[in-house]
């Protein structure tokens, strides 16, 4: 994912404190590594319609503390496999935040209070801003630490390490 890429899609809005059990329940994720299969259950316990509503390139837009709870890396993976191109949140829980970047899923920290379900958004990681095309508003993205920007730019930790051989701060 190069810095110049601009993402565009519809917003699917969630509240505060969406934990990783809600993103992908323990009763599914423990028996398979098939993320395509697990993606069918993304957000099942808080929004059973989510997987049928979401279209490739859409965004999850949330309040505070997104991704809290368990460290399961299946969480950002099923979000990606469900077609979501980035998660926007007022704040992220730290393990989810790190895992999302490690798997090349942009975790975009910004003021999400003005975004409503169905709004068309444009996320410009390089310019550091999110434009709400439906409402004509714009918010700034909180910058990532440099090493996380580098990891995301490579598409995730695996590709980053294969290129650099270690962590370059």
């Amino acid at each position: 994912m190069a810095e110049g890429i601009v993402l565009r899609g519809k917003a699917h809005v969630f509240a505060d404190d969406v934990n990783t059990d809600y993103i992908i329940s323990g009763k599914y994720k423990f028996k398979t590594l098939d993320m395509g299969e697990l993606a069918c259950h993304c957000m099942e316990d808080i929004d059973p319609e989510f997987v049928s509503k979401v279209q490739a390139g859409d965004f999850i837009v949330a309040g505070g503390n997104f991704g809290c709870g368990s460290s399961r890396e299946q969480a950002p993976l099923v979000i990606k496999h469900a077609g979501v191109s980035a998660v926007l949140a007022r704040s992220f829980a730290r393990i989810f935040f790190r895992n999302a970047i490690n798997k090349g899923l942009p975790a975009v920290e910004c003021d999400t209070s003005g975004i409503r379900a169905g709004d068309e958004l444009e996320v410009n990681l390089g310019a550091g801003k999110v434009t709400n095309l439906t409402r004509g508003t714009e918010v700034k993205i909180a910058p990532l630490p440099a090493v996380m920007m580098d990891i995301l730019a490579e598409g995730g930790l695996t590709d980053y390490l294969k290129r650099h051989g270690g962590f370059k701060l």
Partner: protein
Amino acid sequence: MGKTIAERIFSQHCGREVKAGDLVVADVDFMMGQDGTSPLAIEAFRELGGEKVYDPSRVALVIDHSAPSPLEGVSNLHAMMRSFAAEQGVGIYDIGCGICHCLLPEQGHVAPGDIVVGADSHTTTYGAINAFSTGVGSTDLAAAMLTGKLWFKAPHTLRLELRGELAVGVYSKDVALFLAGELTADGATYLAVEYGGEVIGSLSVEARFTISNMAVEMGAKAGLMEADARTLEWVSGRVSRPFMPAAPDADAAYDEVREFDLGGLTPQVAEPHRVDKVRPVEELEGTPIQEAVIGTCTNGRLEDLEVAARILAGRRVSPEVRLIVAPASRQVFMDGMEKGIVQRLIEAGAVFVTPGCGPCVGTHNGVPSDGERVISTANRNFKGRMGNANAFIYLASPATVAASAVAGKITDPRRML
């Protein structure tokens, strides 16, 4: 300006002054994956082109979340872990050994002053023995297995001074729940929490693990305590390598210092479906329950089983309730048998399952039915956590759970002590 525990540990590892906010790459003293997270870590290790784990003696894989396996898909993932462990010479704790967060300190893998990462969010547990221990994802674990290092942002620290003397019938789990309610689910996000004050000093090391375990429920990166005489006594005989405890300086710079007087604290309960929805047990007494769980990385240790056995002595589990007990390790199970604790619990009507996470994560060993209320010594009560989104989970201390199992409803344990 002096150092916090976290700053001291990172400074010691990096061989230079590290301040909160600094980005560093540090050697990891020990790293762990469990059966929910290791398969993805092994896949990532292969994708990285990894051939040899950097230092196999610093790695442990633990089968605890679904032990023994309830399904063929899980069995195949367990087989993947065994195969990787054999190939790499990495230690593996197979079914029945116990829960990762009980095993790692018990078996001497963690020492004061260590940096430990685990592919499990409750890795904060070992902060109780003064280790900077934190949860990471599977790919970060793969990177640490391959390189022996990980990048960190040295956290700022929130210091909690816990004052007073806990009343009879009030335990470290009640302290942990109370703090979760006060600070809320993201009250300590990205911070290291330091727990200090005479309440901590008065607790056994086992009881301290419960508090550090639940630091992550407030969003914390670590839940640290100083190494005192009790800590050093507990680790001696378990840890065979030299170590360097990390104490905070008197002039350490904390983001915030908060004091709590816990002399008047009563038993606490977290209501469904949030860990920070905490109330005194007095306000919830009388709520009927159908399942009770004593176990998990939060409260499955010998002292936890012991207090439950004390309450159940001469009493029986209500016929309306299933009491499931999962000892946190084989050692706990055997010690419990030797002391007659296991016998007493079984005679009272408790059901024992394999040392492991048991029903906490919804994989097996006690999934509740629709509409049921469970009272559990676990650390999470999210909707669907135990495998049924139509059930309700209350979190409490082993004493409160045992008393409630007898009464068939949420009960103040002080009535039965």
